[in-house]
């Protein structure tokens, strides 16, 4: 897994965030180890949006935490603008913390009921003492609310968070990260928990962010919506990248049998189509991953070779990488 995944890079601009052979292991009772992330190399390029998709247990959340420096890598590195994030101190660390913003799934679940939209959106700016004057803070909030289509901003700025609907709260969650003027946003399941009739509204904000050149990473299990607002898709299985490429290519013509199973299982709003469960059984325990290809016990095409030999992530077609012995 040494090779960098080819996220097409504009000339002359290195990645904002990159990981190299990243491994995160957790110690379990009895001396066992669980590899949540097992050798992930990827680049997040300026003005691009990256989707990381996988089921529970795929390691996508741990990977996200490691990008944010919330989780320490066991081996391998995470670099922010070329510098190892674990070595950042003082001013550099504060700059990193401002530049890489996480949008949690409804972060207002346990919020102080007295918080207003203004309080929520400016919290980071106030705590980081980036801006203090009331007028400037209001301008920041107003701009952030417009970007998430909560307009006119005057109508929302003094409302309490608790009076907002789920979709509006998710927009405020995005606005409060945008207020920090970050270089990368990392979003955890930004739309999948929202009701269908309002989900499209948040998707359209994500599309706008993409068009305006905001760099972001979306972590999700929902491969159906991620295609609307990501350029590149990374599919993870048991801590490893099994496929990556342009999102539209991966979704319309997946190369790895796991990606194929994931996409065939997505229900679509069309009664003439029926979901198929191409993969047998359930995801294995990450503390005892299967030998060879980790997907082999569930794979409909598994051969003897898959049981013994671990496939490397390789360029199967131009710009399309998959870790399967038989992908073509």
């Amino acid at each position: 897994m040494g090779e960098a995944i080819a996220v097409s890079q504009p000339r002359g601009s290195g990645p904002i965030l990159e990981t190299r052979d990243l491994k995160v292991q957790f110690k379990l009772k009895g001396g066992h180890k669980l590899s949540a992330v097992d050798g992930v190399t990827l680049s997040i390029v300026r003005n691009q949006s990256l989707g990381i998709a996988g089921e529970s247990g795929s390691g996508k959340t741990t990977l996200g935490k490691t990008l944010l420096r919330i989780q320490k890598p066991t081996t391998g590195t995470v670099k922010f603008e070329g510098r190892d994030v674990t070595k950042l101190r003082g001013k550099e660390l504060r700059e990193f913390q401002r530049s890489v913003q996480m949008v949690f799934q409804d972060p207002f679940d346990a919020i102080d009921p007295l918080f207003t939209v203004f309080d929520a959106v400016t919290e980071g700016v106030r705590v980081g003492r980036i801006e203090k004057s009331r007028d400037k803070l209001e301008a920041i909030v107003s701009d952030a609310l417009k970007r998430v289509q909560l307009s006119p901003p005057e109508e929302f700025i003094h409302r309490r968070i608790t009076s907002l609907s789920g979709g509006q709260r998710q927009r405020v969650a995005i606005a409060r990260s945008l207020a920090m003027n970050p270089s990368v946003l990392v979003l955890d399941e930004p739309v999948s928990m929202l009701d269908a009739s309002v989900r499209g509204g948040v998707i359209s904000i994500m599309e706008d962010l993409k068009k305006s050149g905001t760099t972001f990473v979306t972590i999700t299990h929902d491969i159906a919506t991620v295609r609307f607002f990501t350029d590149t898709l990374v599919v993870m299985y048991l801590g490893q990248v099994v496929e990556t490429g342009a999102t539209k290519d991966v979704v319309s013509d997946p190369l790895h049998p796991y990606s194929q199973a994931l996409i065939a299982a997505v229900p679509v709003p069309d009664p003439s189509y029926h979901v198929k469960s191409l993969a047998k059984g359930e995801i294995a325990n990450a503390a005892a991953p299967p030998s060879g290809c980790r997907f082999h016990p569930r794979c409909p095409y598994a051969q003897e070779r898959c049981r013994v030999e671990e496939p490397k992530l390789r360029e199967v077609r131009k710009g399309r990488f998959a870790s399967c012995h038989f992908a073509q």
Partner: protein
Amino acid sequence: MPSATSILSVRDLHVTFSTPRGPLYAVQGISFDLGEGETMGLVGESGSGKSTLALGILRLLPLNGKWTAKSISVMGQDVVSMSERDLNSAVRWTKLAYVPQASQNALDPLYRVGDQFVETVAAHAKVEREDVLKKAGTLLEQVGVDPAKLQSYPWELSGGQKQRVMIAMALILEPKIVILDEPTTALDTIIQAQILELFKQMRSFQKLSSIFISHDISVISNIADRVGVMYAGSLVEMASVSDIFKNPIHPYTQGLRESVPDVRKNKPISFIPGTPPDMVNPPPGCRFHPRCPYVQEVCKKSDPPLLPYPGDHYAACHFAERWVKQ
């Protein structure tokens, strides 16, 4: 909505919860029939009243919930005036079983799976422990779980296995009707597909009639013969699954249909502006009117009833005629 082979029929069911802010009108006069062998998909957003409708039919509402109904008939038997005791012995689980929402968490972590089967049966029928376990083992096999898991504790099972166990448990007393509330919502996509396939096998194998509740119209399109669309406590449309997707009448159904992505297509998706109403203070008239792109004066004043249109298609919209396919 009369139906010759109706196995479950509900007339004018209302459920109101008392809340500190005042009464919350969760279900507002719902009537429908479930045909024998039919799977009715019930779709709606959070707060639309789908789960409350199910709990109302089963009379399992929380203490702050009050219900009224003209009739609720389960296999020809009116249960409205039935005592709790009779309901337990003659209806619940034996005729009509229920798989609750987040049912993976409905299993008690302190008891082995087998004991939970025994306890469930004991609440509704007199069957020997050994017979229950034998039957449970057979059912577990049918739902794709190793019968040895009867000896396991729920926390030793994965989410998908727990959901399979819950489905097996619902079927232990051979009910004719099963109500499943969001049975796949907490599951990963591939496991969801497995459970949907399993449910299709089980319903034909056991000749079940069912109500399948989901917030996800794509899941419903996969599983249902007929679909009821709920909005703000009412059924706003009911039709065959193909009509709901091909010829939706109600503007809410139309909007919902367009809000859902299709992974196979790169079609832009839209959304319905605004948010579902607060059911303590619902809007007057048609409760969808504040979000409806076709709203007229009449919609703000008068609540449209659910009316029949050709092809066993029902809709509650003042302007339904506009969208009825001639």
